[in-house]
């Protein structure tokens, strides 16, 4: 189903300038499940504009509570919201910067009570940025996550937490994997089965986080984008927020949700669960329909990943990589063509092309 929303997402693919900013509420809602992971760690929020980003804000506010060792954040060239909240020329590190839009980085190793009001909060962080020249420094390059400066910061860090540009997601995740980093990032669920990304899900090197409240991901957009054409229902001019339904968190940090079993209740019958003609697995479709008494391989929609417990199910693969070409099986004209997908035989001699499917198998046999 190509919804208006997924269209809105694809519209901005390939437009790296297109920015969507996460809200502190949503960051808190997800990261409360990860708190123990951050103790004594170096957290890197790249692809963010340090003071304007709610990711930076979250970690700066909770620096002591989480027991962070260090917080690093970088901005990048032409970010449309740089300098919105504090005047960069006012900060000690950037006072002599030739160009206010030049990208910079923030590095924080402690947040003391600088304004002496008895509380350690964002006001102290602001104070720190204003007065401590060591915290904020200009970058030489663009701030692009692929630049050598950024890679150097990445090497120094333990966990990356950010909302990376969706159009560069594959590359972004590839880099994290290559450098063997932990991460919690906002990403489109549509990208789960992208060729460069899927293998990480399949091999259990990455999984879905808990997800947005009620599945609704809201983002702030820069004022400049308010005139853009969004699909109906996406942009709310009253709140200035856009809403998407197919966004979640990708992570490789362990969370409780990953250890919850699905209770299965359906019984297998060959009629209800036909076998694909071009791969030896049964068609299940939605997660709730997974039969409790079937030992073999089963095809489910990728929403399964939201409830995957690796102790309960093994992921075998994905239709894009497993389906045998239909031209080897059926005569031309009996099936709808397209990329590799699974097909089911129909009574009239034609074949039904299925949606993308993840192939799974119960671990330790059927219950």
């Amino acid at each position, binding site marked *: 189903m190509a919804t208006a929303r997924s269209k809105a997402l694809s519209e901005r693919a390939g437009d790296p300038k297109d920015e969507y900013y996460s809200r*502190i*509420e949503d960051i*808190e*809602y997800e990261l*409360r499940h990860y*708190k123990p992971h951050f103790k004594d760690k170096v957290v890197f929020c790249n692809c963010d504009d340090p003071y304007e980003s709610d990711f930076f*804000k979250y970690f700066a*506010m*909770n620096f*002591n*509570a989480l027991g962070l060792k260090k917080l690093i954040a970088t901005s990048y060239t032409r970010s449309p919201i740089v300098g919105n909240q504090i005047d960069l020329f006012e900060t000690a590190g950037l006072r002599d910067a030739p160009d206010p839009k030049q990208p910079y980085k923030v590095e924080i190793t402690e947040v003391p009570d600088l304004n002496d*009001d*008895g*509380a*350690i*909060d*964002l*006001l102290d962080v602001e104070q720190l940025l204003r007065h401590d020249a060591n915290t904020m420094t200009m970058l030489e390059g663009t701030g692009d996550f692929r630049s050598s400066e950024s890679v150097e910061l990445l090497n120094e860090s333990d966990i990356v937490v950010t909302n990376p540009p969706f159009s560069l997601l594959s590359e972004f995740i590839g880099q994290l994997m290559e450098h063997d980093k932990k991460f919690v990032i906002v990403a489109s669920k549509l990208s789960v089965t992208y060729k460069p990304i899927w293998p990480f899900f399949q091999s259990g090197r990455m999984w879905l986080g808990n997800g947005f*409240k*009620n599945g609704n991901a809201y983002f702030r957009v820069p004022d400049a984008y308010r005139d853009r054409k969004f699909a109906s229902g996406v942009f709310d001019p009253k709140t200035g927020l856009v809403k998407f339904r197919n966004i979640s968190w990708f992570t490789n940090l362990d969370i*409780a*949700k990953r*250890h*919850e079993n699905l*209770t*299965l*209740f*359906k*019984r297998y019958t060959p009629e209800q669960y036909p076998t694909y003609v071009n791969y030896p697995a049964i068609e299940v479709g939605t997660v*709730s*329909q997974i039969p409790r008494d079937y030992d073999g391989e089963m095809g489910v929609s990728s929403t399964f990943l939201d409830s995957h417990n690796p102790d309960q199910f093994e992921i075998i693969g994905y239709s894009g990589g497993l389906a045998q070409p239909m031209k080897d099986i059926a005569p031309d004209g009996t099936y709808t063509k397209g990329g590799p997908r699974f097909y089911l035989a129909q009574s009239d001699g034609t074949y039904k092309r299925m949606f993308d499917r993840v192939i799974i198998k119960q671990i330790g046999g059927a219950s």
Partner: protein
Amino acid sequence: MKIDRHQIPIRDIIENYRDHAEEGVFGYGGQLNIRPPYQREFVYKDKQRDAVIDTIFKGFPLNVFYWVVNEDGTYELLDGQQRTVSLCQYAAGDFSVLLNGNRKGFDNLTTDEREKFLDYELMVYFCQGTDSEKLDWFRIINIAGEKLTDQELLNAVYTGPWLTHAKSIFSKTGGAAYGLGDKYLTGAPIRQHYLETALKWISDGKIEHYMATHQHDQNANKLWTYFRNVLNWVEDCFVGYRTEMKGIAWGPLYDQYGKDPVDTAALETEINDLMADDEVKSKKGIYPYVLTRDEKHLSLRQFDKAARRGAFTRQKARCANGKKCKTPGNTHGQMTFELSKMDADHIVPWSNGGKTTPDNCQMLCIACNRSKGDL
């Protein structure tokens, strides 16, 4: 029933607060069961959650909380779950709020602010009594606020591992019982309607007794297996699904007919015919009817006023049974009756193909109609 009022500072409530979706949410040094696993989980709106924190900082009173004292001295939170979770989450640093225009998590408070928050006292009523006393009392206090369903009230009394397991299956939207039964059951899992239905079936309507008996079981496998058997039997018996199958009391039917061999094809044909039969007014009743053969399930069409009056006039106000009339003293069949003292009857019964048309209508005296089965 003993009900005591206590003032408990937040400091004590949040002691050893832990939130594990699978094991439930606890506080008050681990003694207070804030949310048993799979308890109805309203998603509290951020605004409501923030308002709780705001109320505390302003020092305004929060509504009272109700705790149930368990036999082992631990507590079960009966009323005030969302508010309790909100303040525990805030103290745990799970979210931040705007205070005087400044966004602050618990860790960003001044010592004074933090102490003020921790010292704030909640007004908590502890209630202690037998199960039935508690239930009575819950029903009374249930008048205010978010109303609990009957099953929710029972759940508040009969807590334990059995209930926890039962809820994990029956009380989640999109959960197992819902997935298996949403075509056959009405109501919402989250409001405990599925659990209620399953219990009603397995206990023959004596839900409270069943819950009391099984409260301390280690799991609810018996209930789950029974529920599965019922619905699997329904699926097997009735090969074609129709929306009329939703909301039928399948449990009792399974109990009585679940072991009988069924000719599913013949059953399907018969149901199809009955669905098309104008005489059958309760289409839902077709399912119990084809098993029980009791016509009362079908609410068969009744003769209208004109048909009744027509037959009455034809019979000259006499009972259609004539000399066989059962009314004492009417052995000659010549006694006349008032229309309102007579019942309309099918001359050829519906089961033999008779229709509810004027020509198939006869009027019987009440005595005859009542003893029709004897004729």
